[in-house]
């Protein structure tokens, strides 16, 4: 019974937090931090995508920022070349990135975990090289949309309803929320269950009739779509895109924060994005080098991996994620006295273990 009560409370908590994020935070924080929070919204989507891949299906991507760059590139190209409304462009960017991700990912799916991760690293490197040569669209014509001779580069446009920074921040939070709902819709239904089976035991999944290749591809498609959309939001956020904004090390750092935040839950994706984008902004404001964060993230990866009980995807989120949950629990109304067991017991029939997000 306790589980059902907790689940009923959750949407209310989430709604409150969302409203606070949308309206409370912009009132409290300066534009500098609002811009950082817009980045948090963008990267929470990418982190969620990485979480789907790593946490649900056990595929580690060492090149997700490169995928983000592709999404941003497509969105920028479309934004300059067409006058389509922003949401349409976001969806298009997502779909094109999704197709690209599936085409590249499908042959790679035959490889085992380590090889697959390494291929994503190389792929990211390759994309970085291509982008450095191709450059991001800047209003020019032709396929690449880049005109090296342009002196006054037009900014990438934003939706008409969200042209100011606080408004665009709210816009990105809403897009992120929609993407999160998309992930949840998958996790709670058949693909989520299939992924759970594949993650624990691929032979068992196959023996149950699950087409593992299809479901892995599905996860890849979902992750690529979401990352592509995030790229579109990023394009509007920064107005100007440069290939040096997407270096290889960022993919590695992103993976690190996602591991620290917890690959398994969507809250973890938010935590990861906060680590990745908000903390550096904070530090920069205080005059502290962001390199300290890089070092911290490195230590965080080591800590998370050495204390995780089983595989990467089975980790119980520790540290910050647990802290986050603790804080959330503190903001809830006090619950009726719970039975002492959230501890799984060996006897049958005891309900326990609240579900993951």
């Amino acid at each position, binding site marked *: 019974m306790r589980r059902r009560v907790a689940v009923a409370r959750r949407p209310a908590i989430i709604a409150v937090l969302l409203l606070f994020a949308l309206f409370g935070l912009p009132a409290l924080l300066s534009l500098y931090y609002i811009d950082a929070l817009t980045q948090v919204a963008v990267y929470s989507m990418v982190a969620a995508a990485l979480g789907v891949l790593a946490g649900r299906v056990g595929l580690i991507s060492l090149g997700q920022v490169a995928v983000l760059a592709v999404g941003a590139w497509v969105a920028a190209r479309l934004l300059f070349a067409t006058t389509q409304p922003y949401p349409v462009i976001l969806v298009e960017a997502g779909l094109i990135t999704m197709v690209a991700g599936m085409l590249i990912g499908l042959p790679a799916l035959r490889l085992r975990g380590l090889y697959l991760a390494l291929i994503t690293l190389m792929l990211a490197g390759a994309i970085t090289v291509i982008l450095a040569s191709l450059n991001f669209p800047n209003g020019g014509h032709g396929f690449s949309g880049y005109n090296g001779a342009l002196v006054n580069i037009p900014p990438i446009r934003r939706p008409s309803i969200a042209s100011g920074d606080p408004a665009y921040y709210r816009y990105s939070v809403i897009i992120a929320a929609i993407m999160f709902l998309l992930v949840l819709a998958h996790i709670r239904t058949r693909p989520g269950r299939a992924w759970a*089976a594949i993650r*624990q035991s691929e032979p068992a999944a196959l023996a149950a009739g699950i087409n593992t290749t299809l479901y892995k591809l599905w996860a890849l498609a979902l992750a690529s779509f979401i990352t592509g959309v995030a790229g579109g939001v990023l394009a509007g956020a920064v107005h100007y895109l440069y290939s040096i904004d997407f270096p290889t090390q960022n993919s590695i750092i992103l993976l690190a924060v996602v591991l620290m935040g917890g690959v398994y839950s969507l809250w973890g994706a938010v935590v990861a994005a906060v680590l990745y984008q908000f903390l550096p902004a904070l530090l920069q404001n205080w005059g502290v080098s962001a390199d300290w964060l890089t070092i911290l993230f490195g230590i965080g990866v080591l800590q998370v991996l050495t204390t995780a009980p089983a595989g990467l995807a089975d980790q119980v989120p520790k540290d910050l994620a647990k802290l986050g949950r603790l804080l959330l629990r503190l903001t809830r109304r006090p619950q009726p006295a719970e039975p002492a067991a959230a501890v799984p017991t060996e006897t049958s029939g005891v309900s326990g273990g609240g579900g993951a997000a």
Partner: protein
Amino acid sequence: MIEVSGLTVRYGGVTSLDDMSLTFQVGTCGLIGPNGAGKTTFFNVLSGFVRPAAGTVRAFGDDLLAMAHFRRARWGVRRTFQTEQAISELSVFDNVAMVHEHSRLGGSSRRKDVLDAISFVGLDADPDVQVRTLGAGQRRLVEVARAVVGRPKLVLLDEPAAGLPDEETSHLGDVIRRIPEHTQALTILVDHDMSLVSACCETTAVLDFGKLIASGPTAAVLRNDDVIRAYLGVA
């Protein structure tokens, strides 16, 4: 009826199955042999995890080896594993329903079929609990329930009683004995527990070093000199 003909599996210089030819009749058949004899390899061939170097398997008239591995479950191959593989983070219901979900069986009958399977194996647990909260014996029953749900044609049980205490083993034995009549499926049981095999299987086949060394009515096979020698070595 399952017809295995000339099945050979080679991997890394080892011949795990050597020209195995056998016909399994309907009912429950035992498959025994010392460790490394090729029993799990045989199951892996049937499940589609291992491609044989030679040989064919015709199951109920269909060419089993021609089907992709995940399609075999839909066709009706069901399997339990040596180390039990019930999916911890899903509920009992979701575990058992998995095969149902991914085959062409109708959604409307799903709930009924799943609950039937759960009660058939005598699993006394709330179907909505997460499997990770269950004990070893119950997790094994979840796996067996998954193997019998819907309309299986071939049920492969790989050492289902491994690591279980006696009462749970005998309960499992009761369940296994009732599988053929409940599902009309052909059941193959691999195990080292000879009393379980004797109790459940009308016929038994014996593998040693990948070769079939005996097959026939269980009682006779268990008394066969070659079989005893394979297990215990030459006197």
